[in-house]
């Protein structure tokens, strides 16, 4: 650590190298901390979590009972023991609450004045955070599994919505129209994600085992479909030609630089793809247990080198090295299935929510001197006398 600091001071190393090394060390020491707690508001399982990108201070969570809660993650008390309090809630008593389970919530990417939630009651609501009333309600014909707004979009305000219908719908926030649809899938669309690198690129995953990458400006169909065998038609049986997984594809996640896309499927596999060419990088993560009928929400770390993937696996969160595929550790702490996890890039913390109605905060362990070190320091001082 000291060598990094001196190298940075003298200019031998770039400043970002120290930051990356320290972030990686912190991510590798994630642990449940009894000083950090998140207030338990949900009465039923938690399906989705989102942390806003502007300040990293407020966290949204959506539950199976239709309740949406906003938490303040910042520690303003001077004590180390801190419970993240709920700032406000859209509870069962609110007139505008969702009737069934909330599947996805997302903050408006540019400020916290607005957030969007979609639910199994076939609606997607755009909420005003100040008044907690929906400014706009989009009605759909089938259950809404997921939605996503592009985090970098300047030229458009489109929300991509994945529903029971094989057609992916694009809703425009600026005009309220929803005539733009993307056709190509043959099964329910379980997960949609915009690329964090190009504001017009969208990836969608469906129960027909295919993942399609679209450019929304193009009139004709998708740009390409991800193929797990990389075009080698001989490897697969004839049904699984040109599919991303051998089962339903229910999780999608772009890496922070947008160069790679991770997909998770019910064939218990996770695959890493080059997002520009659609090539399977063939990184082998082993068996990533996945039995979810809906989407799986997993996340990738940011600012570390090497990057890590956090995937909910049963009742724990598995942490894999992104490019090596090795299982680094399993984060155990939940009492029931984990449904979602979200990484806080500024503090290298992980928040995970599951069916046990808890949101757990995984915090990096602080450096403590070991007892051996203390003994050595003591002996050193004694020698000096």
């Amino acid at each position, binding site marked *: 650590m000291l060598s990094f600091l001196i190298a940075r001071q003298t200019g031998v190393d770039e400043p970002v190298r120290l930051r990356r090394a320290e972030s990686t060390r912190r991510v*590798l020491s994630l642990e449940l901390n009894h000083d950090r707690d998140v207030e338990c508001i949900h009465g039923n399982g938690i399906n989705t979590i989102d942390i806003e990108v502007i300040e990293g201070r407020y966290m949204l969570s959506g539950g199976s009972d239709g309740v949406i809660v906003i938490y303040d993650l910042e520690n303003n008390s001077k004590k180390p023991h801190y419970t993240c309090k709920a700032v406000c809630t859209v509870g069962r008593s609110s007139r505008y609450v969702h009737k069934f389970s909330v599947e996805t919530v997302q903050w408006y990417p540019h400020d916290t004045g607005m957030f969007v939630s979609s639910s199994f009651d076939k609606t997607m609501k755009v909420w005003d955070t100040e008044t907690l009333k929906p400014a706009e309600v989009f009605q759909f014909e089938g259950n809404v599994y997921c939605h996503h707004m592009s985090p970098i979009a300047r030229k458009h305000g489109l929300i991509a919505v994945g529903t029971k219908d094989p057609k992916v719908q694009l809703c425009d926030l600026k005009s309220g129209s929803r005539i733009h649809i993307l056709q190509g899938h043959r099964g329910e669309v379980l997960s949609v994600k915009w690329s964090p690198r190009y504001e017009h690129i969208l990836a969608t995953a469906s129960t027909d085992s295919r993942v399609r990458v679209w450019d929304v400006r193009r009139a004709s169909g998708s740009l390409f479909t991800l193929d797990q065998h990389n075009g080698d038609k001989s490897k697969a049986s004839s049904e699984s030609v040109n599919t991303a997984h051998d089962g339903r594809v229910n999780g999608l996640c772009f890496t922070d630089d947008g160069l790679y896309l991770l997909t998770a499927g019910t064939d218990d596999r996770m695959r890493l793809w080059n997002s520009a060419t659609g090539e399977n990088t063939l990184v082998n993560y082993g068996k990533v247990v996945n039995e979810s009928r809906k989407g799986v929400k997993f996340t990738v770390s940011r600012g570390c080198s090497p990057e890590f993937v956090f995937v909910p696996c049963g009742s724990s969160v598995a942490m894999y090295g992104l490019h090596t595929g090795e299982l680094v550790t399993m984060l155990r702490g939940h009492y029931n299935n984990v449904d979602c996890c979200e990484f806080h890039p500024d503090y290298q913390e992980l928040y995970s929510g599951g069916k046990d109605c808890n949101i757990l905060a995984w915090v990096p362990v602080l450096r403590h001197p070991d007892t051996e070190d203390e003994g050595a320091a003591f002996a050193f001082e004694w020698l000096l006398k």
Partner: protein
Amino acid sequence: MNRKRTLMPDAFRTKKRRFGADNLIGNPEHGDVQEGPPDVKATLQYLMTLFPRKLFNDSLPQIVLKHQLYSLHSDKTLVDKQVNELRDQGELLMFQLGFDSDTFALVFSVDYRAKVLAGEAGRATLGTVEKFLDKVLPCCSDLSFSKDKMLKQFLFTDAEITQLVKSGVLTVRDAGSWWLSIPNSGRFTKYFIQGRKAVLGMVKKSKYNEILKTDLEERRTTSHVKLHMKYHVHDIIGAELVECIQTTSGTLLRFVDT
């Protein structure tokens, strides 16, 4: 004392060797985790020795399953890469056995050639099989062939394709395409599935669904388990049908309920 050993990145790490009951580094027979880049060829040769040749009257080449390598090396991606390199060099052949789309069998090309030709000796199909082995295998490392490819690229006639299927070198995949296969491997597949079920049953029946690896290897095998016990143990570890837990008395295998 800090009981939980925190994981440190390379930049901050002082290398400390872990000493456990099975820590004979470099010896594929004992070591579960090998330091340094994995030598897949050496591991393959070790696993081939576990294959029982007498059981099939020496008519089958030695077969190893790809996921058995994962039980001996921790980095699956590197193992996959090396296997693909060996396949591209023409030393290794990969087959789809048919019972699981994810399970692949590996055979050294030299062994395969020898056994297939030995099996074909004296039969009418010998000529076609030789032609197939000489023309197709060296240049094309595919697992399956379509009718188009066979007729146009390799210039086989329909009659010759029928002969190849009869000899067992090709198996039907669906209308107009065939898998590359090992002749007479049906018995191997049957014994393998039976043995896998029996070994997993042994683990399931133990108290708490877990058993020490050394104990399992020493158990008396029933008549259902015809292949070597160690072969099956590598298979169930590599296919992640059991969870491997390091304890002070050695490796513990716990049944994974899915």
